């Protein structure tokens, strides 16, 4: 009964979203506030309705209603409560529900405010968000219904259907299959909602952009109105990516954090355009330039958000044939095509209205360098997009699948990321408008001197890899430039206010959160770059089967195999755990306990590495579960990952930088009535 009600609520919400679209369009063309208001209310009503249906699904998950195919596939009796709850987004159907729920939440939040100054934008913001919501709800209702239950047909087959097939009898399994063990990690529990928060939040600036295009508003109002949404979207997308990296590092047992897998890349691509957009909108706000480009960037970001969901949900990555057999694949494909073509057509229609108000004055101005930054981000995007879709093209044309793996991406993207690092250092020193190579040069030379010392010191310390030397020099350059900027700003503040350093720093950051928060984000990025350079360039690995008492050496460490134990756990796992002692020379450093867990209900294993983490390096040991393991001997794979912890430290710094950048500025709030 609850399942039928939940499904009914989804159908009702879908109809409401469609009504909202229709009412908004009628309201705009008839200039009828009543219709627009009806559309707004209908849109807002979708949120409590989807919340209700989601709550119903959550209740069915935690109470073990295994007669529902979705509940059966993602939960089991032995799972703890919190995992049953997070199983809500542990499968395809549930994750689409999460998408719709977030979309309705954000759209409702946007339409809550008073719209006096921007009344003409409202109908089209409702149209875009409601169309997106209706699309995802249609997938839930037609193809990925989480409320479908098991039936046994007259032929003896078990099929999941919402309504009984002719002659079929309902089936209720005693237990479910349980959540995929790989998804039972804190990182993976938070990772999908974070990613989806980022994905869905980017729909809001896109909706305003389309509203501006339809209504012919060529000013930067849509950007100012959605500045915070864009930042929030970018934050969550960034956090989603980082959590995904951490999950991969902890759970997948291959000693790395990023494998250039198409699923990872599909989440990275909207981040690339989103980051370019974040930089580029500043030029429009400041100089009235790049209006067309900003529109294109947000259209691309929206398309890539849907494309990312499409790639991971349609089965197209496994094979183009899986795509053609998939029910939702063609739906996604059609939706992306229609929205992208419509958006670009609108942009072309308004192209002349969106001309720059001023022209570029100097190749060394900040706007010119921002444009170069955008070009580099687009370069990385092209590499990623092409790398993801080429295997599909190859399969379609030649019938043969190929793999586009890490060597391709690293070779193509490495120089682009290096150039982005360099720009991160140079751009903050350039001025808006007229800036010459002389003024830029004068600003650059001071931070350049300590940066130039870095490669010399590194070379003396024994670093001879030229990529490492260039990379670490650029990292140092960005750090020195950023600190130099802070120092100069503080000194200027001190002169003006006659206050001490810390007070001056506080006042400076308080005067422009966005600028100094942005600098902190730059710092966090280069700290992350230290970790990436360390693991990518200096990771070493070795594998050996050890008898008890034998040892294995790597990067100056010795690991001795002490014992191995196997025992059942309360949640149905069989845990196989090894104990190793770690030494550096003769000094005992501690124990490591790599293990693998075997989930008997689903028959799936999970590898948990034993990790010794320091700021200098990680010692990452995997009990190689697929080889022969016994109490007397076991095979171990050991990774030495230098500097990798800086990647996670940089991620924490990033959150702090974001909080500073997004902290409300009182004058702005009053002046602009932000949403």
């Amino acid at each position, binding site marked *: 009964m609850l399942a039928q009600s939940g499904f009914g609520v989804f159908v009702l919400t879908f109809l409401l979203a469609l009504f909202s679209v229709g009412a908004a369009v009628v309201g705009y063309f008839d200039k009828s506030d009543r219709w627009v208001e009806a559309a707004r209310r209908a849109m807002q009503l979708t949120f409590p309705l989807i919340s209700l249906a989601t709550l119903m699904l959550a209740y069915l998950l935690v109470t073990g209603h295994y007669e529902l195919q979705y509940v059966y596939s993602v939960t089991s009796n032995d799972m703890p409560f919190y995992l049953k709850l997070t199983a809500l987004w542990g499968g395809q159907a549930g994750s689409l529900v999460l998408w719709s729920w977030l979309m309705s939440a954000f759209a409702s939040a946007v339409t809550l405010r008073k719209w006096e100054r921007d009344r003409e934008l409202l109908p089209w913001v409702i149209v875009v968000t409601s169309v997106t919501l209706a699309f995802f709800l249609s997938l839930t209702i037609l193809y990925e219904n989480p409320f479908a239950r098991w039936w046994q047909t007259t032929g003896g087959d078990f099929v999941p259907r919402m309504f009984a097939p002719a002659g079929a009898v309902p089936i209720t399994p005693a237990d479910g299959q349980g959540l995929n063990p790989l998804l039972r990690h804190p990182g993976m529990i938070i990772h999908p909602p974070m990613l989806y928060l980022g994905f869905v939040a980017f729909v809001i600036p896109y909706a305003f952009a389309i509203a501006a295009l339809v209504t012919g508003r060529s000013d930067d109002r849509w950007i100012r109105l959605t500045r915070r949404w864009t930042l929030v979207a970018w934050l969550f997308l960034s956090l989603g990516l980082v959590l995904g990296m951490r999950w991969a590092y902890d759970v997948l047992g291959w000693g790395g954090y990023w494998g250039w897998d198409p699923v990872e890349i599909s989440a990275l691509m909207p981040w690339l355009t989103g980051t370019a957009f974040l930089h580029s909108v500043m030029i429009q706000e*400041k100089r009235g330039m790049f209006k067309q480009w900003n529109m294109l960037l947000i259209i691309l970001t929206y398309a890539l958000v849907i494309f990312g969901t499409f790639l991971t949900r349609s089965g197209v990555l*496994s094979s183009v044939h899986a795509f053609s057999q998939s029910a939702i694949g063609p739906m996604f494909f059609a939706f992306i095509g229609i929205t992208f073509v419509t958006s670009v057509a609108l942009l072309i229609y308004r192209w002349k209205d969106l001309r720059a108000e*001023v022209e570029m004055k100097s190749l060394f101005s900040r706007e010119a360098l921002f444009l170069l930054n955008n070009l580099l981000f687009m370069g990385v995007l092209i590499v990623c997009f092409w790398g993801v879709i080429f295997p599909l093209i*190859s399969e379609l044309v030649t019938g*043969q699948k*190929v793999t586009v793996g890490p060597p391709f991406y690293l070779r193509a993207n490495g120089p682009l990321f290096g150039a982005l690092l360099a720009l991160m250092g140079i751009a903050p020193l350039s001025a*808006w408008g007229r800036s010459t190579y002389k003024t830029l040069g004068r600003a650059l030379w001071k931070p350049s001197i300590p940066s130039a010392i870095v490669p010399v010191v590194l070379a003396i310390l024994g670093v001879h890899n030229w990529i490492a030397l260039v990379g670490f020099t650029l990292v140092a350059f960005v750090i020195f430039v950023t600190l130099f900027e802070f120092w*100069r700003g503080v000194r*200027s503040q001190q002169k003006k206010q006659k206050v001490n350093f810390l007070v001056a720093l506080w006042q400076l950051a308080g005067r422009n959160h966005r600028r100094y928060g942005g600098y902190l984000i730059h710092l966090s990025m280069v700290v992350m770059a230290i970790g990436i350079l360390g693991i990518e360039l200096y990771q070493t690995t070795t594998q050996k*089967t050890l008898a008890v008492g034998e040892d294995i050496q790597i990067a100056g460490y010795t690991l001795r195999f002490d014992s191995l134990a196997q025992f059942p756990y309360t949640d149905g796992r069989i845990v196989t755990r090894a104990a190793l002692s770690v030494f550096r020379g003769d000094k005992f450093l501690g124990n490591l306990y790599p293990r693998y867990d075997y989930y008997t209900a689903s028959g799936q294993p999970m590898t948990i590495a034993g990790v010794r983490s320091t700021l200098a390096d990680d010692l990452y040991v995997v009990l190689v579960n697929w080889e022969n393991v016994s109490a007397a001997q076991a095979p171990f794979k050991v990774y030495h990952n230098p500097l990798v912890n800086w990647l996670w430290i940089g991620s924490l710094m990033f959150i702090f930088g974001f909080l500073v950048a997004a902290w409300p500025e009182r004058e702005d709030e009053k002046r602009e009535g932000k949403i």
Partner: protein
Amino acid sequence: MKTKNIFLLIFFFQLFAATLIPSIAVSAQQPTPSDDEVNAIARQLYCPVCENTPLDVCPTTACHQWRELIRQMLAEGKSEAEIKQYFVDYYGARVLSEPPRTGINWLVYVVPPVAFLAGVTLLFRAFTTWKRLTKEPITGADHSSSSGSGPEPAEGSGTAVDDEYVARLEEELKKRN
């Protein structure tokens, strides 16, 4: 005759042993390839069954067997190139971490740099157009008419540089950019 035959038999046995012993000695000297040697090749190959998983870390039974096959081929003295070619012959080009540089696969390597260079060219042309335009009087609203366009400080004058910076900073902070 009988004794002669026995000597002949012993001779041939010794001859056989003489040819056999070096090969036994060689195989005794050739140790079983280590896990690291196997992984060095396996990490360059992708599991033909699992999606996007390098062979050295793939946990499936099939991949375990393929790693053992690599070990066996190494023990037989096969080179890295020969082993990779064997996998390509059997399972197709998808086992390689990058498409082989043949036929349509060239597109994967050519398209990104061409597209990027096209972007650079477009940008460069736009820059030169803008530079030409700025030599003429600028019309329209300039959002930051005085931003960075103050009097140029004297070359090498530290105080002037600082003053210029402070003025610019103050202006940018006011404009919140």
